[in-house]
């Protein structure tokens, strides 16, 4: 396998595998977030478990960080390499005649998602790490004895500007997944016999999952 991940096809596999991991992570993230709409208690319990269970914190979280960083860094490296493969661009290029806008602009939807991730980290991840690992408070409790997670979530969705930014970011996530889902399967060599079903399932995933996240953000904005 020496040199596999340095080859063009090896990098396709690596991008696809990190994409699969991130798509599964998104499902898991959504499953916990949707609890906040139906049961604040269940959301608190699940958040506390995810935030304190050792396997999540010390095994899955580092893998997730690696997956996110790898997907972005390799995405930028491949984009730079691909641009250099055509030194002079066409005077007239009718890309819309043969490919979707989403497939040709993955770098831009990816950049929008990266911008969102920075905002999301500032909003949630950095305060969480600060509370748990710098202040050393692993209790997950507010001074009044209730869990803090639901309170923190609803507080963040008060600002219409932040909610607007989240909604726009999820639209870009949807565009990215519209191509990314089936593309990842093509990259790992999925047979075209399954192409139609994969594309249908991929489109459903790409629309429904970001829509679900948008509904959660809007629900908390208009209910608190």
């Amino acid at each position: 396998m020496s040199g596999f991940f340095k080859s063009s096809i090896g990098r396709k596999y690596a991008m696809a595998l990190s994409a699969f991991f991130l798509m599964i992570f998104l499902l898991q993230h959504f499953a916990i977030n949707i609890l906040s709409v139906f049961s604040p208690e269940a959301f608190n319990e699940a958040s506390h478990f995810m935030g304190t269970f050792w396997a999540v914190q010390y095994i899955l979280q580092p893998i997730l960080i690696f997956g996110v960083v790898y997907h972005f860094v390799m995405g930028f490296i491949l984009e730079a390499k691909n641009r250099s493969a055509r030194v002079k661009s066409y005077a007239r290029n009718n890309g819309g005649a043969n490919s979707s806008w989403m497939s040709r602009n993955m770098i831009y939807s990816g950049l929008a998602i990266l911008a969102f991730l920075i905002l999301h980290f500032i909003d949630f991840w950095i305060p969480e790490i600060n509370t748990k690992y710098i202040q050393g408070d692993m209790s997950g409790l507010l001074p009044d004895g209730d869990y803090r997670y639901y309170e923190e979530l609803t507080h963040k969705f008060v600002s219409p500007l932040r909610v607007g930014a989240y909604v726009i970011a999820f639209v870009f996530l949807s565009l990215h997944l519209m191509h990314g889902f089936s593309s990842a399967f093509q990259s790992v060599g999925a047979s075209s016999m399954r192409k139609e079903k994969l594309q249908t399932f991929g489109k459903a995933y790409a629309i429904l999952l970001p829509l679900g996240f948008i509904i959660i953000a809007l629900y908390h904005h208009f209910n608190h």
Partner: protein
Amino acid sequence: MNLTLKIWRQKGPKDKGSMVDYKVSDISEHMSFLEMMDVLNEQLINEGKEPVAFDHDCREGICGSCSMFINGEAHGPDRGVTTCQLHMRMFKDGDVITIEPFRAKAFPVIKDLVVDRSSFDRIQHAGGYISVNTSGNTQDANAIPISKHAADEAMDAATCIGCGACVASCKNASAMLFVGAKVSQYALLPQGRIEAVDRVKNMVAQMDLEGFGNCTNTGACEVECPKGISLENIARMNREYLFANIKD
């Protein structure tokens, strides 16, 4: 019909090049695109000007020589045809037609619309063949049973004429459809399986060496391919490449 042509003119590999406008008149809709180019070149020669250099050979869609990027698409706006099979009835009177060479770092321009596609030849040399002793004792290929499905898929892959439309159309100038087709046509047949591991590894290594971009599965290559080579061939090449590296 009367047309305005915007054509890329470049005196040689090191010339900067530019788009130049030409007018052609009384073009029949029954002409092929290359016949229209012949009319233009006759006109230019009569005017004492340098004719436009472009590749062509068989003019019946099988040699893969013609290579123009017409109105933003490889081989023009029609589907499943090479430039020589493209007819002027696809255009209308008064149209402005932009004609450029196939653009990729691995396809450097030699002159005007002629590009050097020898990178494809080098990829073929790296493994696009089977090694058979042809001393006279060769077994009849028809004596080896092959399923209809495998034979059809191998034949579909083998129809690739290596024109380079896939590279020209891909936003990343990737050659994976071409290499995928060449890998597939042998990988699907028992005669090709013997050298399958080395073939895919060597051809992919040569493809990367030539400076083609990476495939991002936009599917533009499949749409613009004059022979309808399917993306399935890229998926098959990816599988072959993974298994070849695991086996090694």
